[in-house]
């Protein structure tokens, strides 16, 4: 609602822009999670006895990276009004 009003004030009326914005916002976290999980799998394959610790740290990292994409998701709905 807030974002929709701001966009209207700026003369932007196309709400499809929000979808494009979310898509752009999802690129970074997508690359991040892919790299993170890939490295974690490599670590687990090299050192299977450390798999438990690596998995916990991996989920922590995913949670932090994913927050960016989710904020984009929420902003998308806010701008839909």
């Amino acid at each position: 609602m807030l974002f929709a009003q701001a966009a209207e004030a700026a003369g932007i009326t196309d709400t499809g822009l929000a979808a494009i914005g979310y898509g752009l916002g999802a690129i970074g976290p997508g690359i991040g999670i892919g790299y993170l999980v890939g490295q974690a799998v490599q670590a687990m394959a090299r050192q299977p006895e450390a798999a438990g610790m690596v998995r916990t740290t991996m989920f922590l990292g995913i949670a932090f990276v994913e927050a960016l994409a989710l904020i984009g998701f929420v902003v998308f709905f806010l701008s839909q009004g």
Partner: protein
Amino acid sequence: MILGLEFPPLGHLVAWPTFFGDDTLGVNKVVLIYLFAVLLTMAVFILGNKKRLVPTGMQNIAETAVEFVEDSIIRQTMGTKGLSWTPFMLSLFFFIFFCNIFSVIPIIQMPATARIALPLFLAVLTWVLFNVAGIKEHGPIGYLKHALFPPGVPKALYLLVVPIEFVSTFLVRPFSLMVRLFANMLAGHILLVTFAVLSAGLWTPKLYAIVLPLPVIAVIFFTAFEILVAFLQAYVFTLLAAVYIDSATSHEH
């Protein structure tokens, strides 16, 4: 809009009529789910507390869950000294999981965590808890020093580091905890509704009804995926709560 299909406005997907009470303190479907999740969490604690040598039924589930929370959440993040937090972590995990899992239970099909109130409350609870635990451990001044002044930084850089640490510890942490749980569950709910509406719209005697199996398969697939997400979000929330409490009470600096 596709195929003349009208998708309901997004606000309608999570809005439920109030059964009784007024708007602020009324009881609707989501409140009933909260209450039911509380009862289920209590049931796990009560039924799992039999202490027989050979566990059966509920005790089996409860023991597996305690082992999971202790081994893969608390021991990995807080070490052995964090085991006194097990009751809190266990109830947090089960409460969030039960609230989430209602997104795939037939007829109910509404994650209680897709309304912002519950994630907000849980995030504020975690925020208060890790701050109180930190203040108890270091004292009020010592805790602020522990949280805001990381050691080994040149004196001049504290001008930059302290505001960043303040924002990331006291503002971003509760906000991201809240948004992560809320947005994940809302996104899953919207996905399920989208494919269910699409399936219902394709149930027509027209030629394009031959693509009906695709959204039906998608609904089944995403229902299974939502079970995984319900578990994973409960796990991640509990894990982050444990990490935050540990970083507030740790002494390694």
